[in-house]
């Protein structure tokens, strides 16, 4: 992954297709491949697995996680997006 300066939207296009973990503030984890992401942080993940403590459910195909649509700035569900990148580093986006 390049470390050159880029706009946030360039970054969002670049991370599509990568394996991710999306952790909701409710404590549930969703692991899968990032299919797409939009400016409201709605997330579509493929081959999703849902983890609550241990493994709860398997969702195959697409899962859509609702983003922050509250225009007053309050996050409906705080999410942490963790990206595993080629073993060099991992970083988290706080959504």
């Amino acid at each position, binding site marked *: 992954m390049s470390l050159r300066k880029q706009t946030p939207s360039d970054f969002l296009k670049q991370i599509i297709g990568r394996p991710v973990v999306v952790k909701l503030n409710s404590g549930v984890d969703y692991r899968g491949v990032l299919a797409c992401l939009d400016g409201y942080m*709605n997330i*579509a993940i493929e081959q999703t697995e849902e983890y609550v403590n241990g493994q709860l459910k398997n969702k195959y*195909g697409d899962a859509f996680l*609702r983003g922050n649509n509250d225009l007053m700035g309050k996050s409906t569900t705080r999410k942490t997006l963790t990206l595993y990148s080629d073993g060099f580093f991992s970083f988290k986006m706080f959504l």
Partner: protein
Amino acid sequence: VAPEPTNTVEEPLDLIRLSLDERIYVKMRNDRELRGRLHAYDQHLNMILGDVEETVTTVEIDEETYEELYKSTKRNIPMLFVRGDGVVLVAPPLRVG
């Protein structure tokens, strides 16, 4: 956010559009789940679902044994408006794909 042209990567909401008129699974806040046919949705994830089964899951903890007892209550609703702010996740119903 400006809408993307349709020949580039689709937004997550475009992919929900592919589920129109299909049965879907919706996970809501407060331990609720819905399974129903998606008739309509909008950018807030407000939805109209038909032929819905709602499952409400509660956990009771036995005060003596600290055992967790999971209970779920189901009800059927022919046509339902779902307010988007309660929606956490939308997926096709559990199937291999």
